């Protein structure tokens, strides 16, 4: 599968024919959707919390510059250092600098979509440093040389058999006759291997679900505990986060945390929610000696300026893609970049440009399920429509579509002409269909009739029949 949003159509075509992907994605529908519904039903205040969560994010975005200033002040006061990185290249360079300065050979990593966004792993590898993904799903896709296909369940597109095959191929130092039949055995094997990597790492890099201005802290949320082993064991802890992750206070973070796990996996709370603030203190017995925060812009201040600001509310729960029928049909890799699903359709054009990612906001029926489950009420279909408007303004919409639309609008704004044309069309199509009442094929309508019959018109338009009825009634 081609890892570029430009290849979306081809990727989607291949994806819907992939039976193994279909099997894997079936778990998404049953698992995530059902579990979220249960968690929501259990908490009467859930919907009110979504409103509160949205309000916190909206307020913070409205004051983002000021909260980031206060955040940096606090990080510095607690012994940490903030690195402001306008671009992905700046962020890669900042991370590499730190790693080189401390002579790092191995870097363990907690799950971070930002690190995917800036292609950090490739950069470290190219510079002789080995990055080791420690989130089990990320570890698995790293073995396969793939991107994650979901923002919280990176290996959701894989069945157990594929994972077993990868482990056997990559963990060649282990006895080949060992059993890896059960998921439990795969987890055990990964635990053992990654345990050694945790202990040997020189630098640990985590993402951040939230940055807290009040205390200069970063918050990560995991179930495995890998993020904690990543940050507590090595000499250096690097947090890599985008600007819009900041929230004002611990109380604000709490409101968001109350909706995060419930929206993501249907858990009441993730197993490990960790608030990290600065390096180890003078009398601490463990913990990193250095704490760095890489603050990435990479297009977000631009999104803040325009119609797409609301997309910056995202708290990376994944509920939108869990409920998206398009995602269910094609999986995450078809989107071709870091962020799949509805949030991917909105963010990707903002970060890499609408020319690159044009198909993403178009491949939606606007069914609205994403917005209905988004914990911070991002109006995702509206944002996708805004992207379509941008495309239309810039003449990126296919010419046939523009022409067809132009013709439609021309006719529709001339009702009498419209009624004549539609009257003809109704008769013609009805005649073609004959007694069958439907057409198996129709020139120019291959997109439809390739996979479904086209019901024929009844033969006359409503307006024609209504006028005839009124003439008979003398009205």
């Amino acid at each position, binding site marked *: 599968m081609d890892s570029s949003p430009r290849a979306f159509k081809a990727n989607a075509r291949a994806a819907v024919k992939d039976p193994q992907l279909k099997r*894997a994605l079936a*778990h998404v529908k049953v698992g*995530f959707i059902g579990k979220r519904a249960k968690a929501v039903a259990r908490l*009467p*205040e859930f919907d009110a919390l979504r409103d509160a969560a949205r309000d916190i994010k909206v307020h913070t975005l409205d004051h*983002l*510059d*000021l*909260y*980031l200033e*206060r955040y940096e002040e*606090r990080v510095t006061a*607690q012994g940490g250092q903030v*690195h*402001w*990185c*306008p671009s992905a290249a*700046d962020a890669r360079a*900042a991370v590499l600098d730190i790693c080189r300065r401390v002579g790092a050979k191995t870097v363990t990593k907690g799950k971070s979509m930002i690190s995917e966004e800036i292609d950090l792993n490739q950069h470290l590898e190219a510079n002789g440093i080995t990055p080791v993904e420690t*989130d*089990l*799903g990320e570890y698995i896709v790293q073995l396969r040389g793939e991107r994650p296909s979901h923002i919280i369940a990176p290996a959701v597109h894989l*069945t*157990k058999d594929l*994972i077993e095959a990868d482990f056997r191929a990559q963990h060649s130092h282990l006895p080949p006759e060992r059993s890896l039949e059960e998921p*439990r055995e*795969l*987890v055990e094997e*990964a635990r053992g291997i990654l345990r050694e990597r*945790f202990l040997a790492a020189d630098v640990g890099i985590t993402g951040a679900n939230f940055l807290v201005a*009040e205390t200069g*802290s970063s918050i990560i949320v995991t*179930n*495995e*505990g*890998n993020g904690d*082993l990543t940050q*507590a064991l090595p000499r250096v802890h690097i947090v890599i986060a985008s600007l819009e992750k900041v929230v004002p*206070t*611990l*109380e604000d973070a*709490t*409101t968001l945390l109350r909706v995060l796990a419930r929206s993501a996996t249907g858990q*009441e709370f993730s*197993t*490990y*929610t960790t608030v*990290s*603030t*600065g390096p*180890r203190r003078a*009398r*601490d*017995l*463990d*913990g990193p000696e250095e704490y760095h925060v890489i603050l990435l*812009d990479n297009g977000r*201040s631009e999104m*803040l*300026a325009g119609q797409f600001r609301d997309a910056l509310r995202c708290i990376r729960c994944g509920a939108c893609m869990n409920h998206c029928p398009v995602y269910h049909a094609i999986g995450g890799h078809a989107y071709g970049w870091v962020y799949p699903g509805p949030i991917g359709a909105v963010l990707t054009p903002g970060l890499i440009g609408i020319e690159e990612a044009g198909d993403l906001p178009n491949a939606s029926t606007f069914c609205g399920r994403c917005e209905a489950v988004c914990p911070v009420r991002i109006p995702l279909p509206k944002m996708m429509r805004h992207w379509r408007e941008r495309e239309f303004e810039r003449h990126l919409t296919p010419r046939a579509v523009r022409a067809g639309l132009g013709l439609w609008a021309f006719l529709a704004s001339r009702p009498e002409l419209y009624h004549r044309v539609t009257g003809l069309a109704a008769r013609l199509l009805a005649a073609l269909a004959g007694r069958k009442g439907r057409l198996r094929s129709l020139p120019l309508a291959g997109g439809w009739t390739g996979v479904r019959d086209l019901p024929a018109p009844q033969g006359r338009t409503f307006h024609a029949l209504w006028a005839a009825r009124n003439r008979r009634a003398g009205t």
Partner: protein
Amino acid sequence: MSAGRDAIMGGLRRALKRGAEATDAAARQTVDRRLDAAARGLVPARGQIPPAAQVDLFEAMAVEQAATVTRIASLEAVPAALADYLKAANLAPKLRLAPSPELQNLPWDSQPMIEIETGPAQGSDQVSLTGAVAGVAETGTLLLASGPEAPTTLNFLPDNHVVVLKASQVVGAYEDGWDRLREIYGRGSLPRAVNLITGPSRTADIEQTIQLGAHGPRRLHILLVEDTESGNGA
């Protein structure tokens, strides 16, 4: 990186249409006030049940998330309870103890079989014993804070993490936990790591089925000390 900072802040200020001094000052005041107030948002009813009910809810929620809980009458009962735990789980009688005087001064002599070492965890440790700052009843969540008496690695490296939690430490909602931390560390200040822990480590990355013991502890055992009359107190 100040060129980077200037570039980003410039972009943000443009995006937010900053410039007019009066509105800027008003915005700053809004931010200052919100940070100083650290006001609570909507706290679910479940986090506001009477203290008497909080301990029971804490236990129920923790157990639901696959922690195990044993209630003991007093702190002095901890060594014996730990010995029972090790035996029941068929674990070697070795313990990595948090260097907290409160825990170190317990009657460990009554369990001479247990080999005790204190300090941060080593990769080979099987069992750790730590205290906690609070237990949040809302979701059965332990609140631990790093410090000289509480190295973080004890919470994550060993296969088994045993936590001594007093009933008097149980609170209703996470916000109560933050208040406790502010009492200890002051406002705007936190220790290096505050861990909110709900059950043992787990993953669902393989076909969406939950497996316990991913990277962190396989088992989380809570020794709940009933140090209050009604089971909860100030």
